[in-house]
């Protein structure tokens, strides 16, 4: 067996790195109970339900007690709207990018065609381009297109084409596709095609073969790519800033703007909720795994 498996120094380093990864998370969660409006210094956990005397002398009414900032968060329409937008954008762009990227991976891995090299280079670009360049470039492009279309079709008022959820989703798809393609392509490289050949021999056409043989075998790669696209979309700031419009604010943009001006524990409360949701999903998965193993 591998002698390195249970080496103590590896375990120690691992614990340290995990600690490093989670220390800020811990700080974030703790500060979401901060008994201070400005959230600059941690003055202690909110302990009472009702009136709370703050360090600077003001009185803060906190009927929710320690969960004051969570209650405030629930009442904050802006944040809820931004969260909703973020999720909508992430889901739609992830789905689209995954489908498109998987098709692209298949094309690049298994076929030869004239535009192959061009496609490969083109897919490489979003990885190396500075986000702000892409953001401003896309903004300029959309603006020109919209002003042209608006003028030609005489659109005005609420019917005018403009930046919004759609433009953000389109740009998210654009920067996600290369990552999905990369991941799926990697998966395709070691792919055993004998199963597909067997299916075809048995009379299935290309589409059926793909759907019932190729795709299921490819699924881990596809899902990993989807996961990556989802993560990228969820956190994107620069490109979203330049391509969004009225009412399509996302969480990163809202948080960035908010953090820059007023620092409030509400944002911490939001992070805490977010983290809780993810942990919930992870534990559920573990539980399901265990059930599957047992049965």
């Amino acid at each position, binding site marked *: *067996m*591998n*002698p*390195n498996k249970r*080496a103590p120094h*590896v*375990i120690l380093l691992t614990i340290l*790195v995990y600690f*490093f*990864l*989670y220390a*800020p998370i811990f*700080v*974030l969660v703790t500060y979401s109970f901060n008994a201070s409006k400005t959230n600059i210094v941690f003055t202690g956990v909110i302990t009472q339900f009702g009136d709370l005397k703050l360090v600077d002398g003001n009185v803060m009414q906190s009927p929710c007690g320690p969960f004051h900032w969570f209650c405030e968060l629930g009442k904050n329409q802006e944040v809820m709207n931004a969260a909703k937008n973020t999720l909508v954008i992430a889901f739609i762009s992830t789905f689209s990018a995954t489908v*498109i*990227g998987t098709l*692209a991976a*298949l*094309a690049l891995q*298994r076929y*030869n*065609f*004239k535009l*192959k090299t061009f*496609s490969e280079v*083109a897919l490489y*670009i979003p*990885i*190396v*381009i*500075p*986000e*702000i*360049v892409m953001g*401003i*470039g*896309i903004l*300029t*492009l959309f603006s020109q297109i919209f002003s042209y279309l608006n003028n030609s079709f005489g659109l005005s008022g609420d019917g005018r084409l403009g930046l919004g959820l759609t433009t953000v989703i*389109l740009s998210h798809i*654009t920067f996600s*596709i290369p990552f999905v393609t990369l*991941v799926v*392509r*990697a998966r395709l*490289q070691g792919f055993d095609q004998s199963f597909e050949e067997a299916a075809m021999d048995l009379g299935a056409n290309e589409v059926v073969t793909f759907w019932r043989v190729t795709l299921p075998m490819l699924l881990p*790669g596809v899902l990993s*790519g989807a*996961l990556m696209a989802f*993560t990228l979309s*969820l*956190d994107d700031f620069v490109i979203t800033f330049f391509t969004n419009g009225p009412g399509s604010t996302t969480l990163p943009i809202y948080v*960035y703007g908010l953090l820059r001006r007023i620092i409030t524990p509400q*944002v*911490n409360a939001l*992070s805490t909720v*977010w*983290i809780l949701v993810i942990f919930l999903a*992870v534990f559920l998965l573990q539980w399901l795994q*265990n059930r599957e193993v047992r049965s």
Partner: protein
Amino acid sequence: MLRKLRENKSFQGILLISPTLLFMIGLLILPLILTTIISFGSRNSDGGVIYSFTLDNYIRLAGFSTSCDNGATSCFDPLYAQILWRSLALALETTIIVIILAYPLSYFIARASAKRRNTFLFLVLVPLWTNFVIRVYAWMMILRTEGVLNGVIGAVFGFLHIPFTPLNMLYTPGAVLVGMVYEFLPFMILPIFTSLEKIDNSLYEAAADLGANSIRTFLRVTLPLSMPGVVAGTILVFIPVMGTFIVSDILGGRQVILVGNLIQRQFLDARDPTFGSAAALILMVMTLVVTYFYTRKFGFGEEIVIG
């Protein structure tokens, strides 16, 4: 037509890639072409673009400004070269530290039982799913003078009755480095993990049979086979670090100026999109060149990434 589709493999390929091409050309290539055109233009007094052909922006980037302090006609101004150098150095430092930190963790996860592996992996991903900006801001809370770190150290020192002046950690280049390492660590862990996971156990058994101790096994078996993962991870870390501006803005007190900050400033505060476009293109070309030579030497590691 359907028959043609079935028989012509090349046509099939093009069909599959066409949606991708649509997006790439429409929302990537076209804007890039626009950027390139703009970089050869000049700035009008309102910050707009005068479409002409001039190399002034590139000359300025190279350091040869046309207006000099002592009235000479041409002089070398190392400002932008310095900024570039600083960014390269930071990206390099970040990558190296990230590799050092990521490797043991990836190793541990790769060697864990299959059941636990997913959990450990998701534990790595969870911080990534909180907001990027919030994570940077969390480091502010930790590193500031009245922050968590000084509080903890102060408490320890106070317990030991040693006098303690709070450390000045925030708004320094060191804080920026910490922030960068933290942000990009998961992007190195995942690729290295994937390549380590693929190493067949039988290789280790063979090495043990041949009498290799743990160090030799590591150097001769593990490390070389994990290189594709390291390469993929380096690309995923090095390039973004070169272009990020948020971390250096928030943790560096706006004093650590990297290439990303420079470009962002040109498009916003300086209203000089021609110069900004030129800088952005140079950055892109540089990263392309570096990546090309790097992958030539070490392989692209494309069989790794994630999954």
